[in-house]
């Protein structure tokens, strides 16, 4: 569906309401679900004592496609479901992005970040009753590597040598190259643990969910494609991360993830009480939901915020002056105010504000159209009769590739187009289906690309901008490359963050990227649902704290 532009009054109302919603959800995520007198509207924060035994229906926009936790499903919606079934070695704390013990009580790495030793928690069992041991960890990691690209865990195991069972409660994972991002990767759903009987099934067969057994707080009852995934509580669950509020057995007896592809149908189902929670709330629906007095749980996504990245193999992208001029001409605040609401932050740098290791680079993110023109003229560009800069007979008309994976994108890129036009740069917008877009990135026939990428670790900078990874942007910057490689070999968090901070500064001062706005994930809750929270990756956390009246 197309984006409905909000009137300025509606926008202001939306901004106010969203700010209120943010404040409320901030309360709900920082308070225990006990009474909170400061909260004036009904939210999970003031709803009293959890009720045991409720059933929750949660509407999601996409069919999970695969309920194999390591399978390639449909992204967030798949992970909302599979997160409930499996536990991980570590838990990433949404409050600060730090790693906390979960199935691993402690972990340490060797100096060059190639060996990771995990000490495992005692008394953890899979829902079929078999114990979770060091052998389980080895079996799961070996299985992920054997599955190769079919496993969404594969990217975390680049350079994997082996997992060694030291004793029943100790495992050592060895890599041939440094992988300082590995401990964070162990917190992901993809590296969650499945029982031996599940691992015996061929990888593809696990997609249907039959025989998929984990240690998580919920057990898969059934998955019906394009309809629903039903989970039931796992009775003896007692090994949630101690730092999370709900570490014990869940309050809910049953969770149904109902597929509802149409955003307006999800919204209507929530307001009419047919479901108690919805995911994939569209920015245009935020106002509707708040108007209906419903609570929104929101969190800015970690990773790379929405913005522009240059293709530095193109004539336009390889010219630093042009990159600088375009950076100066883009006005992120104006874009955020027009395309979105205040619930979406203006980007502070190449990483979103919820990413561990984020550095505030906003002092380098300057909007100055007059200076943009000066920079171009100093670089030998001259305005033609049509008001567009040209040099050597070639017009400054970069191609900007984008897709509608986020509904406000069209407004954002069209605004960028007009902002640049005002300076004298004639942006050509290009859009297409996902496959065409991927092909365009791969063959490099673009100058600028609009997009984002969610991931809760600063290593996302390396996977995006290093020439040794996918290398869609072909950035020729040895200093940057060196920083990106070094951070992956640095285990000390402070030291690693310092390297990441330098990389972030380099990315904006060299104008490799132009960060614009962050993505915020919104969940809508009915007045009956409480304690539903988003994790450090801004995806649904395990529903151990949730209950319904």
């Amino acid at each position, binding site marked *: 569906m197309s984006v409905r532009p909000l009137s300025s009054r509606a926008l202001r109302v939306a901004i106010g309401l969203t700010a209120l919603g943010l404040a409320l959800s901030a309360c709900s995520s920082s308070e225990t679900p006990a009474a909170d007198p400061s909260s004036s509207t009904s939210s999970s924060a003031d709803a009293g004592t959890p009720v045991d035994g409720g059933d929750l229906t949660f*509407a999601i926009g*996409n*069919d999970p*496609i*695969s309920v*194999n936790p390591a*399978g*390639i*499903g*449909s*992204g967030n919606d798949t992970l909302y479901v599979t997160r409930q079934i499996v536990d991980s070695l570590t838990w990433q704390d949404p409050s600060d992005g730090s790693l906390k013990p979960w199935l691993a009580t402690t972990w340490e790495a060797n100096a060059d970040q190639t060996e990771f030793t995990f000490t495992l928690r005692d008394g953890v069992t899979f829902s079929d009753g078999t114990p979770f041991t060091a052998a389980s960890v080895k079996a799961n990691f070996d299985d992920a590597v054997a599955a*190769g*690209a*079919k496993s*969404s865990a*594969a*990217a*975390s195991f*680049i350079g994997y040598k082996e997992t060694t069972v030291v004793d029943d409660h100790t495992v050592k994972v060895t890599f041939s190259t440094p992988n300082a991002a590995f401990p964070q990767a162990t917190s992901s759903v993809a590296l969650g643990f499945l029982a031996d009987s599940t691992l015996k099934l061929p*990888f*593809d*067969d696990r*997609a*249907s969910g039959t025989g998929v057994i984990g240690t998580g707080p919920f057990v898969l009852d059934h998955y*019906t*494609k*394009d*309809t*629903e995934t039903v989970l039931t509580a796992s009775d003896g669950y007692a090994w949630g991360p101690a730092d999370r509020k709900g570490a014990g057995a869940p309050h809910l007896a049953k969770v149904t993830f*109902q*597929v*509802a*592809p*149409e955003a*307006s*149908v999800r919204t*209507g*189902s929530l*307001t*009419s009480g*047919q*479901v108690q929670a919805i995911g994939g709330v569209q920015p245009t629906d935020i106002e509707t939901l708040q108007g209906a007095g419903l609570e929104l749980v929101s969190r800015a996504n970690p990773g790379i915020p929405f913005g522009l990245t240059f293709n530095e193999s193109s004539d336009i992208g390889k010219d630093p002056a042009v990159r600088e001029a375009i950076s100066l001409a883009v006005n992120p605040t104006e874009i955020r105010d027009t395309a979105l609401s205040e619930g979406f932050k203006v980007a502070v740098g190449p990483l979103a504000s919820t990413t561990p290791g984020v550095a505030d680079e906003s002092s380098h993110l300057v909007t100055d159209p007059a200076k943009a023109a000066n920079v171009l003229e100093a670089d030998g560009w001259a305005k033609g009769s049509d008001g567009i800069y040209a040099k050597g007979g070639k017009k400054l008309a970069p191609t900007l590739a984008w897709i509608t994976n986020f509904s406000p994108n069209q407004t954002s890129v069209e605004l960028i187009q007009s902002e640049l036009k005002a300076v004298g740069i004639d942006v050509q917008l290009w859009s297409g289906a*996902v*496959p*065409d*877009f*991927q*092909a365009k*990135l*791969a063959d490099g026939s673009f100058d600028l690309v609009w997009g984002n*990428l*969610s*991931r809760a670790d600063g290593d996302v900078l390396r*996977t*995006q901008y290093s020439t040794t*990874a*996918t290398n869609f942007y072909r950035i020729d910057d040895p200093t940057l490359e060196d920083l990106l490689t070094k951070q992956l070999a640095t285990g000390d968090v402070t030291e690693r963050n310092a390297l990441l901070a330098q990389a972030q500064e380099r990315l904006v001062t060299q104008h490799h990227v132009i960060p614009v706005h962050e993505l915020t994930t919104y969940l809508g809750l009915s007045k009956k649902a409480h304690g539903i929270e988003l994790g450090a990756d801004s995806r649904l956390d395990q529903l151990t704290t949730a209950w319904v009246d």
Partner: protein
Amino acid sequence: MTRYLARRLLLALGVLWAAYTVTFLILFALPGDPVSIMYGGDSSDITPEQLDALRAQYGLDQPLPVQYVTQLGHALQGDLGNSVVNGQPVTRLIADALPPTAQIAGSALVLAILVGGGLAVVATATRSRRLSGFLLSLPPLGVAIPSFWFGLTLVQWFSFEIPLFPALGNQGFASVVLPAITLALPTSALIAQMLSRSLLHTLREPYVDTALAKGAGRTRVHLRHALRNAALPALTVTGLVIGGLLSGAVVTETVFSRAGLGRLTATSVAAQDIPVVQGVVLVAATVYVLVNLLIDIIYPLLDPRIVTGARRRVAPPTTPTARPASVPAPDRVAVPAGGSR
């Protein structure tokens, strides 16, 4: 009759093969292959070797003609391959998706024939010019209303405002009602438009006057004499309508959050899950071909001239001009029964 049938059957098989081949070629012409699409965004750390291994596993590394022949061979044995997204057999995905779609499409078809047919009969039988004019203005409206909007409106009224029917999922009969109405709307409009024009034309035929002159009642003449003859072009449209129902299922199942062939099509096209898309096209083509085969069998029962007069130019029972402009499909309607065979 046997020759006639054998010919239709052979043609049907030809259509199926063509559908399979054209889909294969079109899907192959799309940029990117399923493997690189799946690993486009989030998992950018996959090594090229791992991707190649996966391509080899799915046979995507083979030259195009080899892939075509291998897949066609498997398809002939009833193996449509596996989804590249989740590894499930395509035949199972389709087998699971067919019943819910058949449920709403079947209900919609019955509804459309009753409503569309009824409207046409009443509109042509009534002596009130005002009623007739009103009724005849409805079908163009029905064709013009976007089913996406119509479906959302139904959900809004009869599920969110007045909780009569569930908005989501496949929950028994109650959840069939709104989708069936949504699907039936354009279909019934098409049938009504076709049948009313055809009826109006037939009612002007001399034999109608003859029947009336011989003392037959208006109702009898209308229903027995005229309707039977007027039904032939409408029957042809019904064949096309089945195709329309299948494509309409994409929108309807999305709006009503129902599993089925439409959703399977939408999701597999989005993911460029080539084996699934190809399987869906093949199934849709099969349904289409079977329905038309069935109609070809029914034709001679309604009008024996179709078989006996195969080589003679026979005046069609009604003129082909009755085809509404909105019928998007192959020009079967315009071929008067027996005309060119």
